[in-house]
């Protein structure tokens, strides 16, 4: 009985992982690009990015998820899974914008100045000097955000996507064992966030810049 419940819920893990596999990279790319706009864009674009970040971070994720889902599903006709994943990516990009902005600013304006003194264009300087450092410095904070995305994936439950939580609910209803069902779901999520955290710790150690001194 327990095994049945376990396997049924586990089959939802694939869906959960696909949602995360879409939301994470899309959110990352969006977040980094927006952070560059925020730091290096002119007053107008930087301001727009700031507004974007405020909105994404000031509204509950469920609310944003619903709004984005209805907009996306209505206009482009995406499946709930895709729409949900993309919505999560958009929400996360608001937070990632801030994470990378902080990282870029902690690297400091001096690095940009030195790069330009060599004759690099701003773009080259960003690509070869600023980003390599900022991305490494951002790993600890980004690791928190990854955990957030993994946990937020449970929200797509509300969109009917047959991921872990949805399956747990089905099990709970059909077997009258809600505690076991939801307990298993909780454990699965915990394992995912735990593993992600470990992986990112490893990444941080591997890519660490020796004796890095940062501007405050």
């Amino acid at each position, binding site marked *: 009985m327990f095994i049945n419940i376990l396997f049924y819920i586990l089959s939802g893990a694939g869906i959960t992982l696909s949602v995360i596999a879409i939301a994470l990279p899309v959110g990352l790319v969006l977040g980094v690009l927006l952070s560059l706009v925020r730091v290096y864009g002119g007053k107008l674009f930087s301001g727009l990015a700031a507004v974007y970040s405020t909105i994404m971070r000031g509204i509950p994720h469920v609310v944003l998820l619903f709004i984005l889902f209805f907009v996306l599903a209505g206009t482009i006709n995406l499946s709930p899974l895709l729409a949900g994943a993309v919505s999560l990516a958009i929400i996360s990009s608001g937070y990632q914008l801030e994470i990378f902005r902080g990282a870029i600013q902690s*690297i400091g304006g*001096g*690095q940009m*100045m*030195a*790069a*330009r*003194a*060599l*004759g*690099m*264009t701003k773009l*080259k300087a960003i690509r*070869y*000097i600023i980003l*390599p*450092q900022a991305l*490494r410095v951002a790993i600890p904070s980004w690791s928190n955000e990854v955990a957030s995305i993994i946990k937020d994936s449970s929200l797509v439950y509300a969109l009917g996507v047959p991921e872990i939580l949805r399956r747990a609910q089905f099990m709970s209803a059909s077997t009258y064992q809600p505690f076991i069902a939801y307990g298993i779901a909780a454990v699965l999520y915990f394992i995912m966030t735990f593993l992600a955290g470990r992986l990112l710790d490893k990444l941080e150690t591997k890519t660490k*810049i*020796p*004796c*890095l*001194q940062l501007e405050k």
Partner: protein
Amino acid sequence: MTKPIIEVKNLKKVYGGREILKNIALTVNEGDTVVIIGPSGTGKSTFLRCLNLLTYPDSGEIWLDGKLINAPGVNQDEVRQHYGMVFQDFLLFNHLTALGNVMIGLTKVKGLNQETAKEKAMKELRHVGMQDHIDQYPGQLSGGQKQRVAIARALAMDPRVILFDEPTSALDPELIGEVLGVMKKLALEGMTMVCVTHEMGFAREVADRIVFMEGGVVVEEGNPNEMFYHPKVQRTKEFLWKITELYASSEKK
């Protein structure tokens, strides 16, 4: 007949409502070592950064090798390749080794291939005496070592002029010597240099010309002998000798 590499006329720069540079004129000839001195906060660094257009002047003319570089439409990035700059805070790229720091301008700006870039980089690192530290990261180097790598980085680009912005001000006293030594060597080899510094000993020994700047204008300029022993302006005399007193102790070392 030495030809001027840099000619500056009527340079003005305003920052936050204040006129930092009021009306600067300067000529730097090929092979010259020009040392700019003066009280802190009087625009010396700003002037230096105007030369390589890191800071854009509000009015005036800057001529490099006969070309007006602060004209509209000039490719500023390209201009900066002709200058080398060494900063007070070193500003080495933290994520690259010493070798990497010197190579990156060659590979990513000048577009050289890895081998050629590495050869040139090694040559310059040897030039400054840092050949044994090529695989170390900036965080692992002392201040003097960092600054020497910074000089190598600037040299690797084969600049027409190297700009030094208080290169020893952030160094522990014992480490100043190694950096000044490299700078002296470059000057003797005929490198054109413009240095902002407080190191009077260096100025006296190595400079072809000393420029005293205060309040955004050039108060006086001349060769070291004139400036130190026969200054025309009272203020020059005051400043030079007060500073010399303070730094006399580090000279004795």
